[in-house]
């Protein structure tokens, strides 16, 4: 689980760095950046699935509403951010992807606080 958390963090941070780089170079999101954003969505979905399985296998998250709220928000946010990246053909579209990837890292940190047992 630690490995998965690290993987999610690294994918998010690399995507964020790439997005900020694109924004700094005045590039709009291309397939590389969108692919990175897609990868963020993928690892986030895997994280959600694993947490869901752990919950179903007898875990006891103290606050299920918040837990799944964060997981769903994170996923929707990454998909939405990628969509803005497609639709906003300027550096700012790239920046949206970068911001969304950064927020995903924050959400992951909050997930660890919400259900520490799920990541143990």
């Amino acid at each position: 689980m630690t490995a998965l958390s690290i993987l999610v963090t690294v994918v998010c941070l690399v995507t964020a760095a790439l997005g900020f780089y694109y924004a700094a170079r005045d590039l709009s999101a291309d397939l590389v950046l969108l692919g990175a954003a897609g990868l963020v969505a993928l690892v986030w979905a895997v994280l959600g699935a694993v947490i869901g399985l752990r919950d179903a296998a007898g875990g006891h998250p103290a606050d299920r509403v918040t837990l799944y709220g964060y997981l769903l928000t994170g996923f929707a946010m990454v998909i939405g951010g990628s969509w803005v990246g497609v639709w906003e053909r300027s550096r700012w579209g790239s920046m949206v992807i970068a911001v969304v990837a950064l927020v995903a890292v924050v959400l992951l940190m909050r997930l660890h606080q919400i259900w520490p047992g799920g990541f143990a």
Partner: protein
Amino acid sequence: MTDPRTHRSDAAPSVPSVPEPTGASDAPVSPGATGASSRGFEAVLIVVYGLFSLAATARSSVQMLRDFSFAPVAYLLSLVAALTYIAVTIALVRGGRRSTTALVLCLVELVGVLAVGTLSVLDPALFPDATVWSVYGQGYGYVPLLLPVVALFFLVRGRRKGPEASVSAR
């Protein structure tokens, strides 16, 4: 709400260069061809405000549904923050950088963050549970304090320079 373009109709004999509503087919970055499809920095603001709308709404509704009496003042202020964020998001989506509504709402938001932040420092007893705006948005990395300042800066600048600013601001 008034048509934002009427504010600037005195500046130039209007409409010679209204970008045609071309589809997404001309997408690959053609600088200068940023028509109505490109919002520039506005897009970033809309996304961040949208996220805060969601976060604040979810937070305040969950808190209120669970135990409203635990910290009524804090929960109500969270709700106010949530509604403000939703209103700013809608104003930005609809009116864009020249929206007067967005400008006023951002001012309200800034006053709200400062007032609630100060109140939470002076009288912590009122806040047994945190709000989005407690201690100037500490729990959210002070982004709630920064956000209205950045938005106001952007909105005022967008007004001064007019629609052309959207191109030079890229």
